[in-house]
């Protein structure tokens, strides 16, 4: 019997399912960053708002990268539904802490995916995901750097204002 599945699909079916789950996570992450941007905008933290608008666009780009990869390789990508986006935050510090947790969770999910790829010998997807591994490392570094600023400059008054001014330069130079 011919291997029709392999003729039509370059990636493993289970990996396709996990990639679709990853699409959902990236979409949720993008929406979460939008909510954070909105909070910053309402609290006169313009630079932080711009930073999170940019983050939201980046997460959507990640989602689209996976989306196209699935379809380009003969699979079916599903447009994700996004729900349970939190809009309530106590402070900018809490926002950056939530952002770091979110990035860590995405990193873990990518690592699990790579682990599964190795299990089922899907080397094509493993190679594709290498870019995401490097990207996640940079994202985590950025968020960690922001939290370090809070230790340095405080979380209220002028310190917070000065911190907001430093946010545009927070990304690693190699990322720019």
């Amino acid at each position, binding site marked *: *019997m011919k*291997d*029709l599945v*392999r003729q039509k699909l370059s990636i493993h*079916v289970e990996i396709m399912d996990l990639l679709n789950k990853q699409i959902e996570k990236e979409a949720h992450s993008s929406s979460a960053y939008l909510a954070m941007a909105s909070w910053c905008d309402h609290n006169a933290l313009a630079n932080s708002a711009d930073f999170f608008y940019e983050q939201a666009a980046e997460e959507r780009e990640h989602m689209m990268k996976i989306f196209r990869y699935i379809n380009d390789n*003969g699979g*079916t990508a599903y447009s994700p539904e996004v729900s349970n986006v939190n809009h309530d935050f106590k402070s900018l510090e809490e926002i950056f802490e939530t952002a770091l947790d979110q990035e860590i969770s995405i990193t873990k999910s990518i690592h699990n995916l790579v682990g599964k790829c190795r299990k089922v010998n899907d080397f094509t997807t493993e190679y594709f995901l290498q870019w995401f591994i490097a990207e996640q490392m940079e994202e985590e570094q950025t968020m960690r750097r922001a939290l370090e600023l809070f230790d340095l400059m405080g979380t209220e008054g002028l310190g917070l204002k000065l911190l907001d001014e430093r946010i545009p330069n927070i990304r690693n130079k190699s990322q720019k």
Partner: protein
Amino acid sequence: MKVLHQSQFFISYQCDKQRCFFIEFPHKRIKLSFCQLLAFRQQVKEIDLNAHFNGQNPHGLEMLMLCNRQHFFVFSTLECIDLKEFITGSFAMLELNSLLTTPF
């Protein structure tokens, strides 16, 4: 045409010549491309069997449209349970075939 998997109500076949799949339902047989088979699998995966037993789906019916809305099916709870097993079994057989045909 070769049988891939058979469950209580359904049978799946692979046709090498036409490079497609067939599924035999109790009252008709339909032809599916691989893409359509994937879409069918997704629809079956999304069936929430718990809803059939906790009162959310009191009629116990699921309606699925297949192959770009060419076919319309209504399945009972019993058929849905069988359908889930059937899809898992069919894809397991496809994977097994893939392993057997891969040259080492």
